[in-house]
């Protein structure tokens, strides 16, 4: 086993048996996580590869490049691993969260506006604690807004500062 080189992109190993870098998530684990947490089927990502650059920062890429590769960015930041609770990114949830059927928090217009502004809100909810997908209805469909952290009866907004808006 070797350590993680935070300066370059390395493709995730397919399974535990292929793992060569200590603590690196596997493709199988990533797919299982999205399926278990949000019920998003694994075949959603069959045309994508997953990469680690930086400690635990997982990127999703739909193109074709050799591994490892030293570039500034590869696809989209997708998931934060190497911590007790894995955390999806706002951008990943916006792109793929429409398919989610569990741990989705449907907000009213007013709640959605406060969420995007970065406010925490007390909202009753009988689902799992932890990271959830905040969504609202727009143009007649349910659309994911971002990632919330639900603990102690409160929905915390994790919308990054640079993406917070007054809409």
């Amino acid at each position, binding site marked *: 086993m070797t350590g993680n080189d935070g300066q370059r992109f390395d493709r995730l190993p397919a399974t535990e048996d292929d793992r060569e870098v200590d603590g690196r998530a596997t493709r199988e684990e990533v797919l299982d996580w999205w399926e278990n947490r949000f019920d998003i089927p694994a075949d959603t990502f069959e045309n994508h590869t997953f990469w680690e650059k930086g400690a635990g920062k997982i990127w999703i890429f739909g193109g074709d490049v050799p591994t490892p590769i030293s570039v500034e*960015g590869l696809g989209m930041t997708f998931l934060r691993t190497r911590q007790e609770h894995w955390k999806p990114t706002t951008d990943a949830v916006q792109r793929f969260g429409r398919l989610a059927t569990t741990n989705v928090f449907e907000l009213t217009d007013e709640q959605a506006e406060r969420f995007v502004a970065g406010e925490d809100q007390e909202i009753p909810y009988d689902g799992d604690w932890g990271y959830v997908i905040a969504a609202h209805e727009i143009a007649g469909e349910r659309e994911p807004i971002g990632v919330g952290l639900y603990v102690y009866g409160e929905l915390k907004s994790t919308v990054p500062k640079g993406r917070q*808006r007054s*809409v």
Partner: protein
Amino acid sequence: MEPFERYRDVVDDFEAFIDACGRSLPMAVRVNTLKATPEQVEHAFDEAGVGYERAGWHPHVMRVETDTPGATWPSFHGWVHGQEEVSAIPATVLAPEPGERVLDACAAPGSKATQLAAEMDDEGTLVANDNNLGRLSALRFNCERLGVTNVAVTNRDARNFSLKPFAADGEREGPKFDRVLVDAPCSCEGTIRKNPDALDGWSEDHVAGIAGVQKGILRRAVQVTRDGGTVVYSTCTFAPEENEAVLDHVLRQEDCRLVDYDLALEHDDGLTEWEGTEFDPQVTKAKRVYPHQNDTGGFFTAKLEVGA
């Protein structure tokens, strides 16, 4: 507007041109088809009480009646991207297909790169390069907000862009590109309606200096494109030194030719002569868009085919 006096004999209805340059620009957005259809965006703008009008020449460009399109739900969701209307021209002309290898040589801050990704339906490989590390964060931010996953972001001087990082095991270089966009750094005369300070640093020396950079970038773009592949060259300026003269230089130095293309906006052909210098007659296939023709910013675009 002083620097524009040199275009008095070139631009039809010069007074209308100068008048248009002094007016502010209508707000426009591009629908990001990776996340939404134009119909969904219209529905959302209707709900928000924001007026809009689709551009006649492009199905995904809309003029919007708000000064702050960034503060709307469609923008937050990455359904739309604020983008000047003429800035949607080059990616439209390059017209990449899903599955291709595409390079955006001067990509930051990413309006055109994200448009290329949408044209590719997020399939294939888009290399988005820029030499300015600071501007790369804006590029990455925009790509992620619009849900692009097929982009590899690089930080190189486009004049010596290297295929080496993309080489597979045992190969010396990575594959050449099917299509390359060179939306070159320029003197930005055409952005005067958006940025009234655009002409503040204008000088003939500045124009000449930047033209040298443009020649280097376009030459390298042709070199990294496969035979039969396409390069689009564009600027947001009117200066022939940065437009037709750059094309003339690259036509003489590299194996490529200019090709015709359709553009459903009113425009002029490229200039074959400027201040006593004649250019390769092929440059008439380039297109000049002036602000008074379509009530937009100014723009220049040319399409090249690489190899015989």
